[in-house]
């Protein structure tokens, strides 16, 4: 008998069917991955298993856990099961932990309130558990508040709290999406090592993670299972087109065409740039040049200073020292003091497309706004024509003109943001993690769009990312930032398939190496150790 046996799970909200006849089987100790893009119903399925769906959801089918029917079970039964037999790790540990309680207290509560340990015994078990999840100096750290820990450490605490009751099943819903690449790998390793005999249901949009950590996988598309089976055989011979598309869209460091280097005129150059925030030196003596038609990628973990660098270039934060030269002119002072021509030529695309669009404005007004500022004499008909043409260029239908940002998907909103940035015909586009929040296939489309625009207009792109695999497919040069400094990744002559690390800075070297390793998406065959 399976540990978890979900058959024909269907979830409806009114007329909207979000999950349609999904089957999930998990044996004891097995690891199963559910893959799908956002909106494919993977999180809804997980919430249904936990009995945590909204009240208005209409759920049918069968959810049997260890022979016990969970669908329609009493709240008390569900509580019992959730507390002792199914552990959960959510995407964002910052939201899942109570900010006002020390983590040790929160974990002890889990044990005490469910009668799994006495008050006297609980703290010791908590410290043991925190020690197992690799929290350094657990005895001291358990007195810390969540905000005093880094994202990775918080996620370790979440895993500890999910596993402390020694459940039979662990459900992890995008456990690493909110984390850095390097930390991501550590957390996944931890999940793999620590769970012993606990079965794992891993929900993710990242095929690389499933390939590396799950024995079985289930591919969801629009609420339906389109493919399911052992991970190795699905990767080797995907049955469904959608699976094939997902595999093809997964960015890989070792595959795909690398853009060839360009030798145009220098457009933007930064020299000896230093940015300080009070005591903290975020950017430490950085130089950077970007040529016409060239994409320069800046890679690094969060906190490495890459965002500070571009914000200084744009005049959003002051440079402590150094020079930014654009088209022969030195740019100085805050953005408000710069000429309109410079502000037209340097454009920025943000990571979070929804946040970067005014929620009260329609798409047509958002895209047309730069025209109103830079070409106020343009007639409304001409403005509309250019707006529609721009939307067409970024691959959006004219019907979206009337929409508000919240009515767009993440990919659509990012295209609108790119459209707004491109409508003035800038010469340098700065993308600050512009595709990090997007799904695999959408990300590929946006990257392709940027490549096309670059080919046609000779746009220079500064592409900031923490994901080396994404960077590889778009950039001519890669720079790795570490602790505010650069270590350059150059391309070795004659071997276009390898990115070579060319640096003398030891620490940066190590980061670059680890980034390369982590960014490399494993083949199912090579990476699946157990299978």
């Amino acid at each position, binding site marked *: 008998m399976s540990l978890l046996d979900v058959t024909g799970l269907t979830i409806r909200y009114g007329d909207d069917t979000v999950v349609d006849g999904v089957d999930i089987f998990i044996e004891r100790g097995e690891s199963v991955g559910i893959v799908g893009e956002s909106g494919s119903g993977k999180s809804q399925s997980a919430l249904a298993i936990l009995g945590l769906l909204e009240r208005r959801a209409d759920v049918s089918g069968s959810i049997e856990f260890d022979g016990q029917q969970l669908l329609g079970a009493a709240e008390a039964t569900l509580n019992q099961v959730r507390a002792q037999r199914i552990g959960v790790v959510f995407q964002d540990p910052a939201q899942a932990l109570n900010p006002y309680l020390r983590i040790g207290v929160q974990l002890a509560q889990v044990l005490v309130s469910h009668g799994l340990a006495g008050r006297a015994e609980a703290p010791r078990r908590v410290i043991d558990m925190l020690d197992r999840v690799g929290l350094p100096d657990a005895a001291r750290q358990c007195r810390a508040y969540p905000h005093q820990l880094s994202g990775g450490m918080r996620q370790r605490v979440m895993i500890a709290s999910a596993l402390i009751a020694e459940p039979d099943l662990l459900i992890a819903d995008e456990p690493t999406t909110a984390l850095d690449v390097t930390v991501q790998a550590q957390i996944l390793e931890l999940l793999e090592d620590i769970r012993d005999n606990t079965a794992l249901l891993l929900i993710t949009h990242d095929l690389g993670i499933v390939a590396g950590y799950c024995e079985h996988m289930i591919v969801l598309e629009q609420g339906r299972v389109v493919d399911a089976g052992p991970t190795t055989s699905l990767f080797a011979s995907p049955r469904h087109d959608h699976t094939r598309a997902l595999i093809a869209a997964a960015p890989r460091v070792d595959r795909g065409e690398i853009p060839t280097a360009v030798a145009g005129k220098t457009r933007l150059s930064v020299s000896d740039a230093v940015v300080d925030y009070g005591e903290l030196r975020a950017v430490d003596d950085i130089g950077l040049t970007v040529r016409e038609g060239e994409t320069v990628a800046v890679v690094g973990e969060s906190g490495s200073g890459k965002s500070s660098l571009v914000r200084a270039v*744009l005049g*959003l934060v002051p440079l402590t020292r150094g020079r930014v030269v654009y088209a022969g002119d030195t740019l100085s002072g805050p*953005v*408000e003091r710069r000429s*309109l021509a410079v*502000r*037209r030529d*340097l*454009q*920025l695309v*943000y990571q*979070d497309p929804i*946040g*970067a*669009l*005014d*929620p*009260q*404005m329609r798409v047509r007004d958002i895209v047309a*706004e*730069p025209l109103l*500022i*830079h070409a106020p004499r343009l007639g409304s008909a001409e403005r509309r024509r250019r707006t529609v043409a721009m939307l067409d260029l970024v691959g959006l239908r004219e019907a979206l003109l009337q929409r*508000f940002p*919240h009515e767009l998907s993440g990919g659509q909103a990012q295209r609108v*943001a790119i459209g*707004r940035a491109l409508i*003035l015909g800038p010469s340098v586009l700065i993308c600050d993690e512009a595709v990090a929040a997007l799904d695999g296939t959408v990300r590929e489309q946006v990257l392709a769009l940027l490549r096309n625009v670059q080919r046609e207009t000779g746009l220079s792109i500064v592409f900031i990312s923490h994901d080396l695999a994404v960077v590889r497919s778009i950039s001519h040069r890669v720079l790795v930032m570490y602790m505010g400094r650069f270590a350059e990744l150059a391309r070795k002559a004659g071997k276009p398939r390898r990115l070579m690390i060319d640096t003398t800075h030891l620490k940066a070297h190590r980061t670059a190496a680890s980034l390369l390793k982590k960014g490399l998406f494993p083949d199912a065959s090579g990476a699946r150790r157990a299978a």
Partner: protein
Amino acid sequence: MRNRTIRFSLGVLLGVAALALVGPWVSPNDYSGTNFDRLLSSPSFSGWHLFGTDDLGRDLFVRTMLGIRVTLVVAIVASLVSLVIGVAYGAIAGYVGGRVDAVMMRMVDTLYALPFIFFVILLMVAFERNFLLIFVAIGAVNWLDMARIVRGQTLSLREREFVEAARLTGAGTLRIIMRHIAPNLVGIVVVYITLTIPQAILVESFLSFLGLGVQEPQTSLGALVDAGVNQMEHASWTLLIPATLLAVILLSFNFLGDGLRDYFDARHAP
């Protein structure tokens, strides 16, 4: 659905306002004439005392209509003042920030620090006792809260990426405030105004009670309710009618505010 809320509450308010305008003009009675044969008579059609009479034999229908006028005018003036001065002041202080913000907000603090009643008495001494002083007093106080709330909201809006994106593109301060900040303030401003209106109405009746506001034989709904409380044991209508009307007006303003907030907020637009 939301439009229905707006239409309904607006309809009620306009109906009440029209009644208040036309009522005294149609009625054969006037607001100050006393009739000692009919002290505290209950509502009836004889003599067209539709809402009865008070303890001086004055017609309550005409007096209530007069009270509604005062109440509505107070409500509208208070909300206009806090809307125009408060929002502009708060948005500028919040967006420009720095020293400008510090100076502007210390001025608000100073005005806050003045005891309200002392302020009103000061006004009375400086000028003649005048009905208009109520508006000046209420207006002077009401926009302070609004300015603070709008400033706080603006401070957080200013840091949002869409505002930064507009700055990068070259949008000027005025454009950012008008196109990006103000529309995103509508929700909170409308909600706050619906709180301001009842507050202003209550302050007016409080001032009238102290003898600093509307003077007899002029009246307001607040003053009528106050008088009615004294008679409620033997002439309940003197309390119930103005109190009900006051409640209807306040509720309508609240519903109107709810409806308007949803109407202006793009996220809830149908």
